[in-house]
C-alpha cells in the first residue's frame, strides 16, 4: 500500500515545505495538491518549491481538469515539473469541479476528459498533438520523452469506464471499502474489455483522517461527504434516483440534499471548509463511512479492508486541522504496518 497526502494549497509556504520533508521522512510516497486556483492559489509553483526540498516524494495535482488551462499551457507546466524533479510528477485528472464552477464555467464531458489525458501523455512523450482545431500541431522537444502516469477521478459508470481506458490509475474520492471495490472493478473491467493488462492498474482512495477521539474527528471531517455529495448529486441527476447502475450506498445519503446536481445546494466559496453550511444534510454514519476516524488501530483495520478491496494508495486530504500531527501519527503508528522494510 502506498501512502499520500493532499494539500488544499492555502498553507503558508514554509509549512508546506516542512510537511513535505516530514512526510518524505515518514515514508509517504506522494504529495498531491488540489487544483483550484481562485479559491486557494496556484498549486504548481508550490509544487516546484516542495520538489526542491525532497528527493523521493512524487507530486501531482489531485485533480486538475481539461477546462481551466489551455492544453499546451497545462502540458508545459507538467513537463517542466517532471524535468525539475527528475521524473517525480504524476497527473490526477477529473472533469472539473470547484476551479471551473467558481468562475462560472462547466465541467468537461467524459469524452473531452479522455481526450485531454491522451493529449497530455503524448505531449510529454514528445509527440505532436493537434486539438481543438488549432491551426498548428503542438510538440515539445524538451521533455526527454517523459512517460506521464495518469490517474483519472470518477464516480459514475461512464467516468469509471474512461479511467479504465486511459488511466494508469483511478482516483476514488471516498474511503468506503465496498464502494472502492465496486469503482475499482468497474474501471478494470472497462480496461480489460479493451485488451489492456489491468494487473498493474492502481486505485487510490482519498479522504480526510482524524487520529484521535471519534466525536472530534466527525466534526473535523464532516465537510468531506458534502464535497462528495456534489458529485453524487450530479450522478443522481443523470442516472436517476432509482438507477441500478450505481450502488445505493453511494446515492442514498444525498436524499436530504437540497437542489439538483452540483450547481445547486452548495456554496463553492466554502468548499472543503470545516464548519461550513454545505454539510447540513450529512449524517455521522456517512462521515464515518467515507473518512478514517478513531484510534490508530481503527485506521489500520479500515486500511486493511481498503487494501483487500483493491485500493493501492491511500491519500489523506490534509485540511482538517492538526496537519503535522496527523502526518506524524501515520508515520509512527500506521504506515509501518503496511511497508515491508
Amino acid at each position, binding site marked *: 500500500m502506498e501512502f499520500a497526502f493532499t494539500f488544499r494549497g492555502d498553507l503558508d509556504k514554509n509549512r508546506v515545505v516542512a510537511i513535505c520533508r516530514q512526510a518524505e521522512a515518514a515514508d509517504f510516497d506522494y504529495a498531491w495538491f488540489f487544483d483550484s486556483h481562485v479559491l486557494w*492559489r496556484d498549486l504548481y509553483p*508550490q509544487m516546484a518549491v516542495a520538489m526542491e526540498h525532497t528527493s523521493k516524494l512524487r507530486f501531482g495535482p489531485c485533480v486538475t481538469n481539461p477546462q481551466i488551462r489551455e492544453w499546451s499551457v497545462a502540458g508545459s*507546466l507538467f513537463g517542466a515539473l517532471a524535468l525539475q524533479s527528475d521524473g517525480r510528477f504524476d497527473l490526477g485528472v477529473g472533469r472539473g469541479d470547484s476551479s471551473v464552477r*467558481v468562475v462560472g464555467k462547466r465541467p468537461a464531458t467524459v469524452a473531452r476528459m479522455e481526450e485531454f489525458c491522451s493529449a497530455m501523455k503524448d505531449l510529454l512523450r514528445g509527440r505532436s498533438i493537434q486539438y481543438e482545431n488549432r491551426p498548428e500541431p503542438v510538440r515539445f522537444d524538451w521533455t526527454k520523452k517523459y512517460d506521464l502516469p495518469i490517474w483519472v477521478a470518477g464516480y459514475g459508470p461512464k467516468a469509471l469506464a474512461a479511467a479504465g481506458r486511459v488511466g494508469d490509475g483511478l482516483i476514488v474520492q471516498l474511503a468506503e471499502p465496498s464502494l472502492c471495490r465496486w469503482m475499482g472493478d468497474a474501471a478494470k473491467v472497462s480496461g480489460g474489455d479493451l485488451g489492456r493488462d489491468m494487473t498493474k492498474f492502481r486505485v487510490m482512495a482519498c479522504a480526510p483522517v482524524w487520529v484521535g477521539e471519534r466525536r472530534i474527528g466527525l466534526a473535523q471531517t464532516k465537510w468531506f461527504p458534502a464535497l462528495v455529495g456534489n458529485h453524487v448529486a450530479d450522478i443522481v441527476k443523470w442516472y436517476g434516483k432509482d438507477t441500478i447502475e450505481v450502488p445505493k450506498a453511494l446515492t442514498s445519503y444525498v436524499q436530504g440534499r437540497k437542489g439538483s446536481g452540483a450547481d445547486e445546494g452548495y456554496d463553492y466559496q466554502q468548499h472543503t471548509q470545516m464548519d461550513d453550511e454545505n454539510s447540513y444534510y450529512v449524517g455521522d454514519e456517512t462521515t464515518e463511512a467515507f473518512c478514517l476516524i478513531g484510534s490508530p488501530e481503527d485506521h489500520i483495520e479500515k486500511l486493511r479492508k481498503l487494501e483487500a478491496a483493491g485500493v493501492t494508495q491511500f491519500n489523506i486530504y490534509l485540511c482538517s486541522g492538526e496537519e503535522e500531527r496527523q502526518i506524524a501519527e501515520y508515520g509512527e503508528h500506521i504506515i509501518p504496518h503496511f511497508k515491508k522494510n
Partner: protein
Amino acid sequence: MEFGIAFKGDLSHKRTLAIARQVEAGGFDYVWFFDSHIIWSDPYTQIAACMQHTDRVRFGPLVTNPKVRDWSVAASIFATLNRMSDGRMDMAVGRGDSSMRVMGKKPANLATLTEFVSAIRTMVSGESYKYEKSPNPVFMDWTEGYELPIWIAAYGPKALKVAGEQGDGLIIQLADPGLCQWFVEQAKDAGKATGRDMSNYRALACAPVWIGDVETGVRQTSWFPAIVGNHVADIVEKYGKETDLVPDSLTQFIETRKGKGADEGYDYRKHAVKDSENLYYVNNQVTESFCLVGPPEVHVEKLKMLEAAGVTQFTIYLTQGDEERLVAEYVDKVIPHFR
C-alpha cells in the same frame, strides 16, 4: 541603473538555480524568464524554484501575454509566486509573440493588452474582476492586497502609448541608445498627457551581451536582431515603410528581410537560436548596435549612454553560451561602475 538577466528557460534545472544564486550574490536586481511554454518550458515553476534559493532578487516573465492563459489562471500564478517570495514578483507583458505564433495563433490587439493589464492588477490586488471569458466575477481573497509592478513591451507608437499610460515601466527589446531614448520619450509623453507623474517611470533595455572579441561576439548575438526584426516587420506592415512615426534606424535593417510581418520569413521553432536560418538578413552593424559586444570598457561606455537615454534597467538575455562567465564578467568589471 538596475541590472537583470533573462533565462530562455532551457538550461538544466541545477544550472538555472546556480546562476540565480550567482546573480543575486553579484548584485543583480532581477531574474526574468522568457514565457514561451511550447518552445522551452513553463517559466513559472522554474521561477518558484529559483525563489527558494534566493532572497533578494526579483522575478517575472519577460514577457507574458494576454492570450496564452486564462486571466484568472495567470493572476493566480503571479499572486502565488508573490506570496511565496515575500513580494518579489513583477510582470512584464507584450501582445504575444513566439508562444502564440508557434501554435499558429495571433498576438492580442492593444485593447486586449490594456484590459489584461487592469484585470491582472485588479485580481492580484485582491479585488473582484469580471471579464468576458468568466461568467462569474473572479475574487481571490488570499493575495494580501499586492500591487504588482507591471512592465509593458512596445516598439510602435500605439503600443508605446499604452505602455506610458498603463505601465509602471517600459520594456525595450534592443539596446541602441538613440532608439531607447526615442521609445522612453514616447511612453513618458503619453503618460504625462494623461496627467500621470512619470518621474518614477522605469525603462528596461534588454539584449544579449558578449564580453570578448567583437567578431566572436557578433557571431554569438546575431540571432537577436532577427527576433527584433519580426516586431519591426509588423510595424512596417502596420505603419508603412515610409512612415515618419517610427525612426528609420529601427526599420532600415529589415529591408532585405523576406516576407510580410512577423508571420512570414521566420521559423519560430528556431526562435532565439544561434546560427539559425532566421538571421540571413542581419548585418554586423545592426548586431553591434542592438547588442553589447566587446571588452568590458565598451559595455560600460554603452551602458552609460543607455542610462543617459533614460534606461533604468539593463537586462542581459542570457541565452547563447558562456552564461556563468558572462554573469561573472558583469559582476567583476561592469556593474561596479554603476554603484
